[in-house]
């Protein structure tokens, strides 16, 4: 006696090749009805007007240089030292104390924008997509650690939680984009850091009492970090420290 899987395959093969499917086993009929509906979905076409609009857009839209690997616009090689010099001057202008304090500044501190600028410059000066990915992931991890400590001390200023979480999300997205552009090794490294961030945020969720915007943002960030770990992160977050919004997600492999 043939297995049900083989019988089903016989009918599906007829359906896919366009032959009429007749005399089916009654047990299989609900499955074949569903299969037929899916075939009908495959036959629905986009509107001709939309097809044409996309065709026109494809001809007109400017493209980056062929083979470009990153969605983050980068400075030219000779411009990087200039950017570094500019950053050094900014630091001097802000004063040494401010510059040293900036790396751990929280969103309610006037030095937090300095921290963001400092990170953006570090990213711009990084030589490869892998280095940028790790930088972004580390910036996110630093914020997750800070947030856990703040929650542990019950020392939270309104607005700080949402800003930290939002910035964690954006940096995780950037890290995933850069890692995807670089390859499996960078993805693996970023995934490890995301695991640590996920652990920190889970503790934050357990220790803190969140409601409203804070609670919603925490859930969103935790989900984004976890989806990044499973290779499904996308560009839905806000701008990262370089001020660039997200671009396309993973486009390097061949499985649907």
């Amino acid at each position, binding site marked *: 006696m043939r297995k*049900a*899987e*083989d019988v*089903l*395959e016989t009918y*599906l*093969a007829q*359906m*896919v*090749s366009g032959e009429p499917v007749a005399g089916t086993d009654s*047990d299989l009929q*609900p*499955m*074949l*009805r*569903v*299969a037929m*509906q*899916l*075939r009908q*979905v*495959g*036959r*629905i*076409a*986009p*509107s001709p007007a*939309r*097809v044409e*609009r*996309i*065709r026109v*857009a*494809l*001809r007109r*839209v400017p*493209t*980056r*240089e*062929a*083979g*470009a*690997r990153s969605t983050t616009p980068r400075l030219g090689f000779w411009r990087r030292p200039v950017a570094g010099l500019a950053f050094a001057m900014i630091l001097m202008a802000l004063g040494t104390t401010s510059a040293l304090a900036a790396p751990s500044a929280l969103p309610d501190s006037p030095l937090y924008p300095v921290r963001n600028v400092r990170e953006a410059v570090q990213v711009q000066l990084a030589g490869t997509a892998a280095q940028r990915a790790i930088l972004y992931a580390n910036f996110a991890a630093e914020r997750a650690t800070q947030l856990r400590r703040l929650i542990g001390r019950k020392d939270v200023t309104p607005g700080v939680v949402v800003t930290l979480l939002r910035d964690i999300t954006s940096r995780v997205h950037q890290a995933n984009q850069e890692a995807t552009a670089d390859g499996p090794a960078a993805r693996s490294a970023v995934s490890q850091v995301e695991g640590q961030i996920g652990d920190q945020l889970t503790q934050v969720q357990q220790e803190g009492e969140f409601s409203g915007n804070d609670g919603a943002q925490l859930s*969103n960030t935790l989900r*984004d970090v976890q*989806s990044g770990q499973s290779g*499904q992160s*996308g*560009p*839905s977050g806000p701008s990262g420290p370089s001020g660039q919004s997200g*671009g*396309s*997600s*993973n*486009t*390097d*492999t*061949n*499985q*649907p």
Partner: protein
Amino acid sequence: MPNALPDENPASWYVEWLDRARQQDRHAFAQLYDATYRRVFGYLLARVGEQAAAEDLLQDVYLAALQAIGRFRGRTEGEFIGWLLKIAHAKVMDRFRTQYRHPELKTSDVATTGVADPLDAIDQRMRLDEISDALSQLTEDQRNVVLNRLVLGLDLEETSKVMGKNVGSIKALQHRALAHLAKILTPGVDDHA
């Protein structure tokens, strides 16, 4: 299926147009778009269940593919379609994430094109919604096998190759997937898996 291509476009056709598209030849990319958009659209429609949303995503997919074609290394139709579907999957996931955050963005009130009777359009739209919701409840392998077999119209061997699994596994997966879908979409049907 209206988008059955292998007979119309032999392997050498894809090699040539892909090579030219990689050199940023827009005409070549447009040829590839014409040859593949129906299948990509079918995939998107099955995943999001809304014609207008699927059309928006179709544009996003091809614009992203245009930007990234320079680093695509495949040379066959299957590799190209697989790559496009990978991009499509990422775009669908982005959309789901955005919808989760902004549920008001769901566009199911947009009319389904190509259906003359408004009531038929509503029926079709509801059915599409149900199908895409049901597909979301399958495992990734189950979902991919039914999308490859029934929406994209691949045969058993092609599906086996695309998914990197043996034919026996594909048969088992499609049986479990359809049994699960039938249970979800047809009240009173037991899961045969």
